[in-house]
Every structure is written in structure tokens, then in C-alpha cells.
């Protein structure tokens, strides 16, 4: 069922090198440098260890620093002296040292860095595991991680050769790209003359396409992520899936043969596939009947293990499927999907609005309600003032008044806004365009510019033909286009942009779309003249998502790759989904 790649599809680069690199470095730091023998999770509670030395491996966040400071200070009060080491990953920030200093423990701790920024989650997926990137950059306007991204790109280009063709869209993409270029220039000579392994790189800001990330996912991998939450490429299947009383941690990647075949499939096909597979498996087991001793010996020594393994995986995924079906095939879910599709297509807005209202009134789920509101806002260029007020009021009544802050966050990030009356809008727009023509403005992020950023989803959707015209049923078994990841209702905007740009090898002819995305100054192409790249490498494309990407987008691009003979490699700050986006924006009581 999983469609094979075209025979001429390029080989993926070997990312296990990255893993080895990071692991060796960490082992060196922990064992050689700091003699660590036991690991604990950093939690906001007193450390129980009675060791003479504590070593913290943390993200460079002020919160973590305060935790460490409180620990050290309480030790001091208790009259205990220990050695403290802090290892920052991926890098140390000056602000953190400042906090340590202000808390009066700078002299007590020694600091180190573990420059680990790229985790290969799968053969084609690299994650920086920086979920905080999204909130830090798109809400707080904090650019600290952009440098980290640039350094990660630099690492990739030193390992896998230069990228001859670069495209990007979004303010952050442009900044990261420029910083990375600077890094390359400073250390030139290293990558020069190397044959490029990866022919194209495409950088994309998450805020270019919020819509796709906000939709409910219906391809298997996305659905598993939405339902069970995939963490660092593995998922905890609870007792309802494992059909035992234990939870099981399962690694989800291309190694898992069963999963690899269904991960990109629309959920409606998965169950059928799994049962077919089960039947095949049974048939293979059955073969042993009528075997003679020699054949049996062969079977046991060679095939049985593989079959058992497959059996185990199969039963796990069937369990997961059942569990998902239980949750998702109810009427509620159908209604939800229907509403989402209506929003994407832009009809029956009234009906959808009252559906959302009912959703809120019934306290279905704070995150889900919020997601629907955002989806409505983005697809409609903001809510009309009446709805904006009433939905917010309902929401506060249902889920608590502290979400007033959540709404203020969402507004700032441009996720949930109020339709502005026509004239002020043009005023804002002219002001913005003045801002961006100013040369310096390209580099300065105005945290509030997103305020003025309007979504023009409807027009873009029309321009890029995001809603496929379908005559009759969309056959999800034999997908025709990337829309299959959303049951044939919608082609993910981000993926469509990538497809279009790759086709043209530039942004040419997409001016209108770029303008509608409010990215006129942040869409760029950069090609090196000398074309040393082999035709094989030119069909290898690295897509960088700044602010996270969803499994649906990954599936869609994998599909596109198979269609066109490309191979896509994904680099994301973190794998995300609608719930994670909304949680990042929510203010919860401490």
C-alpha cells in the first residue's frame, strides 16, 4: 500500500553521523568532564541526591536558572557544600549567566555547553527539539533561537556539502538564512569545492501558514500524534492500546516496517490495510503446516523472528487504530471535520460559528475550542466584531477568566483577531509597507507587526487552488494530490508553496501570493552559478520549518516527492500540531 519511490529517486544522506556526533559529545561531557554517573529529570522540586556534585543538563532558560539558584541557595542555608555544574544545550546565553549572578551563585557553579541541535528522528526528519521556538519567536519576538538555527544549517552544510539553491519565505527564514550565510563566509574554505549532496533548501516560517497546522490531522502518523502525542519520535501507548495492563513506549520511524507502510495513509485506509496484513501474516504462519523437519528448522531460524516482530507491531498498531476509532469515529468528530472543511472552503460561516459556540458552551475542550476560533479567524481575515466579543465572552465563562491573557497573546501572534473596518486597514497597510521598504526594517523584528498582518487566506486559496474541485468521491486509496492528507478537502498551503517554487525554481509569478502572505520583503531565492550539483542531488530537497511542522505536512511532501521523483528531508524546530500551537499560546494559572 505504501507507494514505492520512483526508481530514480535519490538516496537520502546518512544522518546517523549527527546522532553519533551528539552522543559522543554528551558522553564526553558527562563522563570525562563532569564524572556524572546518574541522571535525573530536572523538576521544580528539591534534589534528593546526596551526591557531592550536581550536574544540570538544561535548556538555557531563565526559569531553569532560578530553579538551580534556589537549589544552590537552599543547600547553602543548610550549610552543605557541593559542586554544581550546568551544561547548557544547545548553547549558553548571557542572560542565564546574568541570572546566576543576580541570584548570587555565579561563583558556585561552573558552566559548559553541549552544542547539540539536530536530532535525527527518522531517515528524513531532523528535529531541533525546540518547541519553545514557536512561542519565543512568534509571540514574544525573541530571536535567540535564530542563531541556533543558523548554526544547525552550518553544521549540515559542512557535513553534507553546500546547498546550491536556496529559497525561503518569512521574516525569520530570511534572518536565519542571512546569519547562516555570514557563518559560511566567516569560515569559508571548508565547504568550498565540496560536491553538494542536497540540491535545494527551502526555509519557511510557521506564520506563513497557520491554517494547515490548525487542522485536525487524518493521516495515520498525524492522527497518532494528535491522539497520543509523539515525543522525540516515540509514543507511549497506554493499556487501552496494548491490551494489557502496561503502557508501552514505541519508537515510530522507518525501522518499524508496519508503521512505515501506513504512516502516510489516510486513516480510512489504515484499518483495511492492517487486517489484510494480518491475514497475510497468518498465511505465512500457516505455511509451517506440512513442512518437513528441515523446512521447519529453516523457518524457525530464519523467518519466525521476523514474523513475530511483525506480529507484535501489527497488534500494536491495530490496538492504536481501535483506540483512535473509538475516539474519532463518533459523530462529534465527523461534525468537527465537517466544520473545519466548511471553514477552509468558506461556506456556511454562520453555521460554523454557532457550531463553535456550542463547542464552547459544552466545554468540550479548551484547546479544541480555541483552535476552532483561530481557524475561523484566519480563514475569515479576523472575526467580525460581534462574534469576536461573544465567542470570547463564552470562552471566558466556560474555561476561566485567565484566558483573557490567552486572547491577548493570540491577537499579538495574529491567530485570533478582529476584523478591522476597511479604512483603518489600508492605513495600517500603507504604514507597514513604508516600514518594510526601509532597509533597516528588514532586520528589525517588530514584535507587533503581526498585529497588522492580515490573513488573506481566501484569496490565496483561490490563487493556489488549495481547495480541489472534486467530481464525485475523492478516492483516498489512490490519492491524486496532496489534499489527501485532509481527506481531499484542502491542499496544505505550506506544501503548495514549496511545490510551486520548486517547479519554477524561483518566486517568479508568485508575486501576488507573496503579497497576500504579507511577505513581499521576506521571500528570497539564492542560486549559485556554478552548477556542480549532480542531477541526483538536485532532486534532494531540505525543507526547514521555523516554528514547527506537522506530520500531515510531512506526509503531503513525501507524497509530492514520490509523484515528482524528489526526496524531501525535513528540518524542523519541533514537530508540532494544533494542540501544541494552542498550548504554546495559552496562559495557564501558575
Amino acid at each position, binding site marked *: 500500500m505504501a507507494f514505492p519511490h520512483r526508481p530514480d529517486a535519490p538516496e537520502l544522506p546518512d544522518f546517523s553521523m549527527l546522532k553519533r556526533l551528539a552522543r559522543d559529545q554528551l558522553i564526553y561531557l558527562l563522563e570525562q568532564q563532569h564524572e556524572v554517573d546518574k541522571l535525573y529529570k530536572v523538576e521544580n522540586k528539591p534534589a534528593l541526591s546526596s551526591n557531592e556534585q550536581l550536574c544540570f543538563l538544561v535548556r538555557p532558560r531563565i526559569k531553569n536558572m532560578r530553579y538551580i539558584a534556589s537549589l544552590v541557595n537552599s543547600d547553602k542555608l543548610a550549610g552543605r557544600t557541593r559542586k554544581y555544574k550546568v551544561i547548557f544545550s544547545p548553547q549558553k546565553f548571557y542572560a542565564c549567566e546574568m541570572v546566576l549572578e543576580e541570584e548570587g551563585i555565579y561563583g558556585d557553579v561552573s558552566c559548559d555547553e553541549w552544542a547539540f541541535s539536530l536530532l535525527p528522528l527518522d531517515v528524513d526528519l531532523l528535529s531541533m527539539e525546540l518547541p519553545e521556538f514557536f512561542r519565543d519567536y512568534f509571540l514574544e519576538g525573541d530571536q535567540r533561537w535564530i*542563531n541556533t538555527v543558523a548554526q544547525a544549517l552550518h553544521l549540515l552544510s559542512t557535513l553534507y556539502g553546500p546547498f546550491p539553491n536556496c529559497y525561503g519565505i518569512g521574516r525569520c527564514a530570511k534572518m536565519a538564512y542571512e546569519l547562516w550565510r555570514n557563518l559560511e563566509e566567516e569560515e569559508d574554505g571548508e565547504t568550498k569545492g565540496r560536491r553538494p549532496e542536497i540540491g535545494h533548501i527551502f526555509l519557511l516560517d510557521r506564520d506563513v501558514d497557520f491554517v494547515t497546522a490548525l487542522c485536525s490531522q487524518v493521516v495515520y502518523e498525524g492522527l497518532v500524534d494528535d491522539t497520543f502525542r509523539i515525543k522525540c519520535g516515540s509514543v507511549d501507548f497506554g493499556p487501552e492500546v496494548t491490551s494489557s495492563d502496561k503502557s508501552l513506549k514505541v519508537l515510530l520511524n522507518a525501522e518499524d516496517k508496519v508503521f512505515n507502510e501506513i504512516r502516510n495513509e489516510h486513516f480510512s485506509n489504515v484499518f483495511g490495510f492492517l487486517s489484510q496484513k494480518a491475514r497475510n501474516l497468518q498465511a505465512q504462519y500457516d505455511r509451517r503446516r506440512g513442512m518437513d523437519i528441515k523446512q521447519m528448522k529453516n523457518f524457525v531460524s530464519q523467518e519466525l523472528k521476523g514474523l513475530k516482530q511483525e506480529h507484535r507491531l501489527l497488534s500494536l498498531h491495530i490496538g492504536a487504530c481501535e483506540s483512535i476509532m473509538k475516539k474519532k469515529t463518533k459523530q462529534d468528530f465527523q461534525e468537527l471535520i465537517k466544520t473545519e472543511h466548511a471553514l477552509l472552503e468558506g461556506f456556511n460561516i454562520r453555521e460554523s460559528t454557532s457550531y463553535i459556540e456550542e463547542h464552547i458552551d459544552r466545554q468540550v475542550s479548551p484547546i479544541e475550542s480555541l483552535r476552532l476560533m483561530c481557524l475561523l479567524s484566519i480563514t475569515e481575515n479576523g472575526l467580525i466584531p460581534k462574534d469576536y466579543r461573544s465567542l470570547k465572552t463564552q470562552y*471566558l*465563562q466556560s474555561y476561566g477568566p485567565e484566558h*483573557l491573557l490567552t486572547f491577548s497573546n493570540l491577537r499579538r501572534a495574529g491567530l485570533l483577531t478582529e476584523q478591522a473596518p476597511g479604512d483603518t486597514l489600508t492605513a495600517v497597510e500603507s504604514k507597514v509597507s513604508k516600514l518594510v521598504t526601509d532597509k533597516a526594517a528588514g532586520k528589525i523584528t517588530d514584535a507587533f507587526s503581526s498585529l497588522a498582518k492580515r490573513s488573506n487566506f481566501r484569496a490565496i486559496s483561490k490563487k493556489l487552488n488549495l481547495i480541489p474541485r472534486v467530481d464525485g468521491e475523492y478516492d483516498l486509496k489512490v490519492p491524486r494530490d496532496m489534499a489527501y492528507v485532509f481527506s481531499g478537502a484542502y491542499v496544505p498551503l505550506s506544501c503548495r508553496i514549496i511545490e510551486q517554487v520548486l517547479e519554477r525554481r524561483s518566486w517568479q509569478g508568485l508575486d501576488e501570493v507573496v503579497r497576500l502572505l504579507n511577505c513581499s520583503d521576506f521571500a528570497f531565492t539564492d542560486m549559485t552559478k556554478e552548477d556542480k550539483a549532480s542531477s541526483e542531488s538536485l532532486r534532494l530537497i531540505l525543507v526547514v520549518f521555523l516554528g514547527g511542522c506537522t506530520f500531515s505536512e510531512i506526509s503531503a511532501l513525501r507524497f509530492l516527492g514520490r509523484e515528482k521523483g524528489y526526496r524531501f528531508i525535513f528540518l524542523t524546530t519541533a514537530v508540532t500540531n494544533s494542540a501544541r500551537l494552542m498550548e504554546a499560546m495559552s496562559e495557564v494559572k501558575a
Partner: protein
Amino acid sequence: MDCYTANWNPLGDSAFYRKYELYSMDWDLKEELRDCLVAAAPYGGPIALLRNPWRKEKAASMRPVLDIYSASGMPLASLLWKSGPVVSLGWSAEEELLCVQEDGAVLVYGLHGDFRRHFSMGNEVLQNRVLDARIFHTEFGSGVAILTGAHRFTLSANVGDLKLRRMPEVPGLQSAPSCWTALCQDRVAHILLAVGPDLYLLDHAACSAVTPPGLAPGVSSFLQMAVSFTYRHLALFTDTGYIWMGTASLKEKLCEFNCNIRAPPKQMVWCSRPRSKERAVVVAWERRLMVVGDAPESIQFVLDEDSYLVPELDGVRIFSRSTHEFLHEVPVASEEIFKIASMAPGALLLEAQKEYEKESQKADEYLREIQELGQLTQAVQQCIEAAGHEHQPDMQKSLLRAASFGKCFLDRFPPDSFVHMCQDLRVLNAVRDYHIGIPLTYSQYKQLTIQVLLDRLVLRRLYPLAIQICEYLRLPEVQGVSRILAHWACYKVQQKDVSDEDVARAINQKLGDTPGVSYSDIAARAYGCGRTELAIKLLEYEPRSGEQVPLLLKMKRSKLALSKAIESGDTDLVFTVLLHLKNELNRGDFFMTLRNQPMALSLYRQFCKHQELETLKDLYNQDDNHQELGSFHIRASYAAEERIEGRVAALQTAADAFYKAKNEFAAKATEDQMRLLRLQRRLEDELGGQFLDLSLHDTVTTLILGGHNKRAEQLARDFRIPDKRLWWLKLTALADLEDWEELEKFSKSKKSPIGYLPFVEICMKQHNKYEAKKYASRVGPEQKVKALLLVGDVAQAADVAIEHRNEAELSLVLSHCTGATDGATADKIQRARAQAQKK
């Protein structure tokens, strides 16, 4: 050829010493050398002369004058000495001139007479005066040792990292020692001094008397002592005219010599070559120069003029008013080739080549002779090596030509040594030129390394030559050309008579984007010379904005630094500048600066959010950002305050702020929240239980669940809960309570604004089919099918659907038909469908 060895003087059986002229001095000295304090740096270094050092007159014309010359006598600097009386001069390893004054102050000058810094040899000296001083070289750098008026020694082994060490007292020392020297052994500096017939060794712990082994009897005092360049050997000159030569450890005697001259020599220095077995000492009197070694006879020279000896690694330089000469032991390779009637392979090869040039067949004979002995390789090597030791380019060339000639007859002779020798000689000849005046020998050059030689050229501001050498030797840019250009630029910015623009332009033109050149370093130098504007101009050329920031901060251009930091995209850098600004500016100005830099502002806000909440508030206040201020207070009402009054007060402030921000919605919502909080408090007091911090919805639900229906109604009215919500809420709560009676009553209280399908759904969720069915009958026609399906009445659902003739409903029902039980129904639907199609 015969005359070539004319200046060779044999010493004993095995060694020759030769003296040849390096330069005829260009310097036009008016005084005799003996009237000056003289210091010459090793490795062909510069010569410093302090004229009239001992005059005390105040008259300007008679003041001491400090002159610095290159080794060829080219003047480098001249300055009037205005400081105190000088006891001793000496050059450091970095070619800085150290002038030790009588009061213990040491003044440090550059090669061009520029004052660098000064330090003191201790307070004790102020009273006692410095009697004598020595500057010596150690592996750490350059050291200074002084002898004070109290006959105590103080030394510092490294003037770069000054640590004064006062040496222990010498017992019974009443007068100044007759001679003394600083010794370096095992990385520790010692002092060796002679008092009468006794020798004492001072280390920092103790003073011990030492006796040289095998010293001839009858010595009543030592007049002179000399330590070799490498501190390995020591020579002592006694009042009997006897010279003892041995190891510096005083454990072994090498040889002795009696010269029968009792007059104290002016200077005595070692003259030996590294890895040579020969030991010789050069002793100089007024008019006589003597080379003595392990031989009964010495070599004698007559000195026409007052001369000064400079010990070198592989020989001795001797300069006077008119000439500058070099005296050394003839190296083995040269000796082999040039010795009269030598049959060494090198000598034969040289001869062969000469015959070859004369087109004589003798060339072949010579060559055959060498080849027969199988010594051609050796011959070539000898010629190459000997070329290195020759001073005259003509002789270098003829030796190299011989080597190259010999090479032709060898199959596999690695070319490196030949090529490198040619290159090295070219460099050496270039720096030996009298304009440059660095008379390095090949061995010295190899010891010094090309890097140091380049440094020295840079120090002499000979940038073009240095660059040419780099290019000629093809040194990597970062080590070579760029480094020199950077030095040049640093020198350029010190030219005060050139305008900022011109300097900046000139520098940029020359340097361009040369890799490895740091404009910020050059700018730092410009700033060091007080040229802030120039520094800023230069920083503009710095491609890495990260490099610009620290200097801009230092120059107090913090705002410029801030924008550069932001350009760099490095948040750490931005943060550094921010904290700098925070301390530098007053709060108001600081905030104003932030206001114009949104990126910095958001960064600082992030920091404040965790570390300085009050500052955050001030920031918002300053900007009149009432919206954020409101949010701030809301957050405070959850986080900071425990007491309800405090929370309400915080919310009130927030509401006020929202009003100011013209955000009426938020203001109203906040006010509602205040009301709710107060009410929840009252509920808790009156009813008990947990109400605080529940949402409005949950509060009402909790009331209903607790059976306080009246209160719930009241609350709903007070807060104008919409009917739809209230119905959902009540429905869910009552079903949870399984209070079916009350639910039914409620359903009949008026027409449901949410219809009756939800009733069916909720009842089914509680698995109460009986109740659900009740409501299913009341569901409106458009949802009837759904309701019936929910309660599981497929048959009736089918009927209704058929009645509605609704295709969608029909398929919905069909999808609910399961196998055997609903077979009949399914058939029925299929029939109805078929019928509908017929129509």
C-alpha cells in the same frame, strides 16, 4: 681560491676562525664608544647608544642623548634623555629597549624611541641606588638583575610578568663584587658573583660559595666573567691573566689558557657554534682582541678603534665607529670545501663545476672521482650547506651552482633542501642589506624562525619587505600578508597628521576583504590613540557586527552598539549591550532607547518577566502600553496575591488600564471576574466547598450539583448567561446527578433553545436509554433520525427517513444497520431508495 682562506685563522689543530665585515658603519658617531652606554640586541638587532650618560649638568646641550641605530648604523630614533641617570641599557627579546635608572625605575622604549611603559625594581632601591644592572634572556622572556648600593641583588626573570625576587645576602660582602653575571639554569635565574678569590652562587633561597674545578692556584681576584649564549658555559678571567673555561654548572673544566695580560679586559664573550665541539672565548682590551680556546696559541687581532662585542648564537659581532664585523668558527661544510688541498667531495664538486664552466674535460675527471667514491650525494649536500654559511652572494651562488650541477648526476635527490636553501638565502640577503640592517646568519635565522623575523620587520615598519617575503615564501595569508597588513593599519592609524577619512580609506583600499584581517582590532588601536571617529569609521568595514560591539561599548557609543548588536542577530550580544546601557543611562533614557529597538525591547521584557517584574511594569507605563499593563496586572492577580482583596485590587487596576487602552471588552471581562471572585468567596463562606478560581460555567455547575438551584439561577441572571449555555449546563449537570425527574421538569419548563437532541445524547452518555427515548420523541423532525439512531431504534429511524425521502438520512440509517438484526430494515431502505429513484 687561494686567497679565500686568507682570513681563516687556525686555533689549535682542528678549528678555524674567520672574521669578515658585515657593514661599514653609516652612523657618523662624534663620540667614542667608550663615552657611551652601549647596548646591542642579539640576532642582528638594533644598537642603542646613550651619549653623555654620566653628565649631571642641567644644560640642555649637555643632556644625555639616546640614539637607536640599526645594525648597519642607520638611525632609527634619537631623543633627549630627560629622565634620571641611567645605569644600564639592554634589549628585551621583543626588541624593546630597557633603560635601568639609578633610582631603580626601568623605562621601556620601542625600537623607534617611543615610550612604552615603565616599572620599578623595588622601593628599597630608591635609597640605595642601583650600582649595576644586567638584562638577560631566559626562556620566559627577558629578565633584569640589579645590584644595589647595599650590595644586594634583585632580579626579575620576566619583565613582561614582573615578579621581583630579592636575592639573599652574601655574607661579609662589604664592597661591590669585582664581577658578576646572571645565570639561567633549569629554568631558574641565579646570580654568580666574584668577591676577591671567592665565587658565590645566589639562588633565591641561599647563597653558596663555589669553586671552579681545576682552577689554577694564585688567583686573588676575578676580573671578568662570561656566560655563553645558551647559558651552558662559563669563562672566568683572573687577575693573573689566566682564563678558566668550563661548564656553567661549575662541575667540569673544559680548558684553560694563560694570556699573561693582567690588565682587566673590556669585554669577554663566548664564541661558539651550536653543536660544535670547539670552545672559544673572545677577550677584548682597548686595542687588542684575542680568541682563546683549547690550544696553546691564541688568535690575536689588533683593534684599530674602540670596539664593542655582541655575543651571538654562533659567533660574535664586533662593531666600532667605522665597521661592523662578524667573528665565528668556520662551519664544517665550509671548512671541508675550502680548506687548502681539501679532497672532500664538496670541494671536488665545486672544482668540477668550475672546470665545467671553463668547458674543460677536467670537470668529468673530478666528477668521476666523486662518483667512484659514491659521495656525490654528500658532495651536493655539502655545497648546499656551505652556501648557507657564506655571507657573500657571489660565493653563495657558486656553491649553489655546484650543488645544482652535481644534482644532475643523481637519480633521486630530493629537491627540498636545495630549494629551501635558495629561498632562505634570498630572504637572508634581503634583510642583510644595509638599508634593512639585520645581519642574520643562517643558523640564527633558523633559530629565530621566519615568523619572528617577519615580526621584527613589522616592528621596524618595513611592511613592504615583509609582505614581499610572505608572498615569496607563499606563507598562508592569515599568518603572513594579512597579519602584516593589519600591523601596517595599526601603525597607519597613529599618523595624526592624516585626516580620519583619508586614513580609513587608505586602510580599506589596502586591506579590502583580506581574510584574517580584523578591522575591529585596527579600530581598537585607533581608539587607543584617541581617534574615536576614525575607530567608528573603521568599524564600518568590519563585516562581523559581533566584533564591532565590544569596542563601540568601550567608546561609549552604546546606542550604535545596540543597533549593531541587533544587526548581528546574536541575542547574547544584544543582551550584553542592554545591561551595559542599563547601568550607563538613567532609567528614562534607557527606556527611550529600548522603545526605538523593538527587538531589544522584547528581549529585555522576557528577562524582566522572570527577574524584574517591577521594571516590566515601568516599561509598560513608560510606553503608555495600557493593554500590556492590564495583562500584567491580571497575571499579578493570579500569581502574586493570595488574599482575595489583593486579587480584586489587582484586577481593578487591570480594568482601569484596559479602559485606558480603550479595550472595553477586556475591562468588562475583568470587572465581571472581580464580581465573580467576590461572589465565589461569599459562596465558599456560606456553602462551604471549593468555588474560588472556577470559571463561571463551572461555578454554576457546582451550584447545581450541590443542589443549590436557586443560587444557580440567580448567578446565571446576574452574569447574563445566555439561555443556550444555561440549558446545556443544566442538562449536563442534572444528567450527571442522574436526577432524571428534575431533568424532565427542566425540559418542560419552556421550549428548549438547544432542541431536544442534546437531551437524547446526554442521556445516552449516562446509558439511560429509557430517559433518552422520552426525549427522542420530542426532537424536531430534521434531527429525528439522528435521535432515533442514538437510542438505537433503527427501524423507526428508517421509517422516518423514508418518510422524509431524504437520501442523506437514508444512507446514515443504512450505515447503522448491522448484519442480521437489522436485515429487514436495510431491505426496506433499499426498496424505498429504489422507489425514489423510479420516481
